[in-house]
């Protein structure tokens, strides 16, 4: 699923995105960054309601391609600068975490655990 498709499915606002055609292979929804660091792989998108610089850093360390802030959360300008410099796309959706994850899953994007196994 491309970042463009994620944006459309979630009716999301694009905060920064260099290449909307980047392919995303899996997804992870969490507000605990250590859980993300423990389990995520494979060109993933991170869905989170947590807003701080460590969300971007976590995605950077994991080589993630996209972050979606749920519940209308918006990243700060500093966070966006960091994301852009790392080539990470940032979206924001009004949908809640459960809804957003469900929509992407129903759209064919697998959970990270399923891909690992």
């Amino acid at each position: 699923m491309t970042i463009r498709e994620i944006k459309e499915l979630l009716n999301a606002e694009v905060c920064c995105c260099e290449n909307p055609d980047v392919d995303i292979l899996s997804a992870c929804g969490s507000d605990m960054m250590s859980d993300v660091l423990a389990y995520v792989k494979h060109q993933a998108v991170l869905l989170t309601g947590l807003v701080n610089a460590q969300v971007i850093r976590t995605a950077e360390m994991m080589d993630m391609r996209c972050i979606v802030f749920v519940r209308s959360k918006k990243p700060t300008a500093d966070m966006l600068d960091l994301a852009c410099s790392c080539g990470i796309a940032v979206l924001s959706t009004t949908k809640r975490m459960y809804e957003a994850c469900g929509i992407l899953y129903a759209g064919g994007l697998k959970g990270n655990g399923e891909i690992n196994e």
Partner: protein
Amino acid sequence: MSDALSFHYDVDGESFSSAGQASAGVKKNLRQLGIDPEIIRKVSIAMYEGEINMVIHAGGGEADITVEDNCIVIVLTDRGPGIADIDKAMEEGYSTARDNIRALGFGAGMGLPNMKRYTDEMNISSVVGEGTTITMKVFF
């Protein structure tokens, strides 16, 4: 004379938002050396968890990364409170972090287990009241 390349970073303990800068720097340096992306990923994640731990628990510290012939060695040193029970600290879910740290997305008791998960060797040396040194190796 050794061919090993070394990088040294001071980890600022004052600012949570700037935590991760050292790990990002290491990641960039290792990329420039053309090291396998999966190795870089493991080193970056392990070091990032360590860096966050140093900021949360120890008021900062130092990180030394050495690229050896067959592995990358990460040494994290702090002069924080030390770890009283290392076996307990290695259990997933065990944490002494306060609620304000959990609200920031960390302190779930996954830091040290994650560092072990992503490295091939890990050694913790800690003295309560004096500090902690963690040495990790990721082999090529």
